[in-house]
């Protein structure tokens, strides 16, 4: 009987997703949601129905960390384990909850009721510690909520009936500038391009100097124009809402409060490049935003702002589908994101060709960040001069910064580009600051001597992440957190990143526990340099930044933990006899190894 249910359910999903192999990931995500795992029968059935090899489905399930072949608990709880969540006590809450539920962290209870584990940053740095329960975000977790959670779980109360206030995600806008201050009437940007024409609009975009807000800073017009000019049966607009960079949470706000503007920007892009198809690739951690976004898309369809003959213009057809991610940071990289949209493992593609000429299903594709689309819509209406009234020559406009860590007022701040780190720290009420990690795990760790530096593409580029650490913090904990993050998020495609991230993390752990020497530092430099040079994509090329950067800017952090010996073993000698001691029952002096290196 159970198997009939599974295949029936899958038939329903297949119908919903058009029986398209490229929607396989979306189907699997729904199977995971309803069955708490992807059973072998489902893999087999999907492979047959979609005409794709069974190993392809299996390989897909194996890639995404939110898909499982082994059943997860009916309540699948994943605590956000970014360093900022840790600083807010997240690990304590996780451990206490697991203990009360009688389940080891990282496992599923034997009765299948509940799983408790960790995931990396869920984008709630300003209102952590956070966790996901069956994919839905809970914020501001406190130890005193544990008792009630345990009751709800043991009482089998559906998550939808849990206290709603646990699931509130606040906007938390602390500073507004032109982007968040200025109104944008529905359809205004679309009307504008229909009125002045595509060429004039592109010129406006060019003149505005708008650059990608995801962090890389590629000129937006420089993507749109070649995509428009590329040959292809159709074109595709993709909104990169895979906001996975630790400490970044601006897209969360934009998708929740300004979704109309983001979609307006996508539609503007569609008009410019001539696309009929659009996607919002929403990170799995933002599942709670899905309903609202779908409602917004529907509202716009009903208002003639999306769908067929937009604004009554014959032939201007454009619609948007939302695809969910499933726990893979690499899918924030645009070519990996496209692979994921096509229902594949998120491996970055070999470039060229670039997505603007060959992207989704080989079609010319523009991939832009959420904030970029919103800014584009605003520029479409307000013009280049309005945008250029803020920012620097090379970095025009404003930037949403997401501030977390040690400060009085964490949250979302809109600043003109060019603002100094110092100014930001003053505004958010940060004191005794030891360092600021700008641009997330792969970014720069800025020491106080450099707080005069500017947030700008030409100085400190960031997608928004701005994590503050005061003098009381052990920065190596942050470095270790990021190094572990990259071990988890390396896609495994290329040798330097796949193996290098693990080798680096092992050595760093040796430093953290005080077992490392100069020789370990030298090894990390060699491996890190190789990763920067030879990795296939930006993830691998920057994964060693957190270690190499802090070794440079905060040498004391390492020096004070290093042993004076010239060499220390790669493992704890005495601990490595533990198993033998247990088996033999010995504890005599000969059953121990004293000392470490020579």
């Amino acid at each position, binding site marked *: 009987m159970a198997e009939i249910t599974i295949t029936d359910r899958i038939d329903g999903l297949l119908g919903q997703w058009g029986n398209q192999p490229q929607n396989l990931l979306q189907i699997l995500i729904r199977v995971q949601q309803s069955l708490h795992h992807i059973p072998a029968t489902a893999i087999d059935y999907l492979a047959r129905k979609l005409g794709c090899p069974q190993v392809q489905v299996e390989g897909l399930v194996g890639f995404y960390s939110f898909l499982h072949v082994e059943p997860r608990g009916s309540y699948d709880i994943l605590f956000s384990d970014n360093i900022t969540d840790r600083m807010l006590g997240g690990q304590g809450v996780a451990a206490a909850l697991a203990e009360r539920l009688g389940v080891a962290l990282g496992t599923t209870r034997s009765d299948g009721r509940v799983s408790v584990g960790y995931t990396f940053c869920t984008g709630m740095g300003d209102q952590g510690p956070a966790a996901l329960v069956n994919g839905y975000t809970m914020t501001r977790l406190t130890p005193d909520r544990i008792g009630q959670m345990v009751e709800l779980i043991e009482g089998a109360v559906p998550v939808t009936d849990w206290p709603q206030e646990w699931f509130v995600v606040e906007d938390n806008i602390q500073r507004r500038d032109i982007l968040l201050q200025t109104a944008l009437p529905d359809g205004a940007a679309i009307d504008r391009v229909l009125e002045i024409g595509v060429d004039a609009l592109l010129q406006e975009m060019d003149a505005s100097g708008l650059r990608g807000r995801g962090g890389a800073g590629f000129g937006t017009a420089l993507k749109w124009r070649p995509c428009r000019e590329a040959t292809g049966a159709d074109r595709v607009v993709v909104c990169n809402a895979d906001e996975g960079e630790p400490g970044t949470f601006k897209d969360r706000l934009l998708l929740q409060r300004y979704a109309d503007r983001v979609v307006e920007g996508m539609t503007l892009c569609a008009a410019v490049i001539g696309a009929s198809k659009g996607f919002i690739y929403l990170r799995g951690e933002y599942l709670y935003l899905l309903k609202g976004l779908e409602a917004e898309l529907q509202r716009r369809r009903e208002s003639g702002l999306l769908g067929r003959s937009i604004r009554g213009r014959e032939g201007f057809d454009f619609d948007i589908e939302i695809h969910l991610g499933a726990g893979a940071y690499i899918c924030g990289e645009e070519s990996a994101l496209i692979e994921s949209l096509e229902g594949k493992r998120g491996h970055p593609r070999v470039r060229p060709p670039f997505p603007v000429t060959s992207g989704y299903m080989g079609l010319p594709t523009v991939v832009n960040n959420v904030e970029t689309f919103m800014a584009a819509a605003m520029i479409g209406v307000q013009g280049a001069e309005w945008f250029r009234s803020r920012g620097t020559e090379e970095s025009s406009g404003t930037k949403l910064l997401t501030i977390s860590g040690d400060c009085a007022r964490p949250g979302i701040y809109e600043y003109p580009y060019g603002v100094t780190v110092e100014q930001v720290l003053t505004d958010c009420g940060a004191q005794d600051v030891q360092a600021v990690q700008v641009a997330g795990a792969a970014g720069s760790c800025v020491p106080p001597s450099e707080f005069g530096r500017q947030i700008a593409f030409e100085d400190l580029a960031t997608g928004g992440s701005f994590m503050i650490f005061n003098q009381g913090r052990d920065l190596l904990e942050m470095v270790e957190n990021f190094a572990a993050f990259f071990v988890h998020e390396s896609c495994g495609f290329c040798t330097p990143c796949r193996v290098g991230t693990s080798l680096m993390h092992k050595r760093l752990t040796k430093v953290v526990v005080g077992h490392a020497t100069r*020789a370990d530092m030298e090894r990390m430099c060699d491996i890190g340099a190789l990763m920067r040079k030879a990795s296939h994509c930006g993830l691998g090329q920057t994964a060693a930044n957190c270690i190499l950067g802090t070794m440079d800017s905060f040498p004391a952090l390492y020096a004070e933990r290093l042993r004076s010996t*010239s*060499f220390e*073993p*790669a*493992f704890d*000698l005495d601990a*490595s*006899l*533990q*198993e*033998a*001691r247990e*088996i*033999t*029952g*010995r504890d*005599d002096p*000969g*059953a121990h*190894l004293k*000392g470490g*290196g*020579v």
Partner: protein
Amino acid sequence: MTNKTRVATASLAGCFGCHMSILDIDERIIQLADLVEFDRTPITDIKEVGECDVGIIEGGVCNADNVEVLKEFRRNCKILVSLGACSINGGIPAMRNQYTLKQCLEESYLHGIGVEDAQIPSDPEIPLLLNKLHPIHEVVWVDYFLPGCPPPADTIWTFLEELLSGKPIEFAYRQIRYD
């Protein structure tokens, strides 16, 4: 006292094949004897390693005694050489790393074919096994690596000759292999 180079060697978790290969330098051993004086080696049967110029280690690190011997060598030898596949990456003995120590010991001493009076030895005279076997460079700093199972006598000779005469250590293509 002579001004000959003092050399010590030891076999840890190895099969003594590398030592056999040292002996395979044949008549050149006479030439070698003019240049070096052996300290602790299985050949001299000296039990403690003294101050040496060169220490040569065969085999990986599988038990507490291996660790002590290796550290003793590192303390006493100016130059430490990792000789052969086992000391370099664990070799055949490292194939036990696929199993837990418990599985290994139970298979050998409890469930294995022909086992009588089944018991896992716990005599304090017997060095305890490490959870996993490790190459020697994971325990001490190693100055030179000579791969092979065993490294060919010719490779060992080339190395010693170059080392003792202060020449850069270089090998012909055919002298380096991992098996």
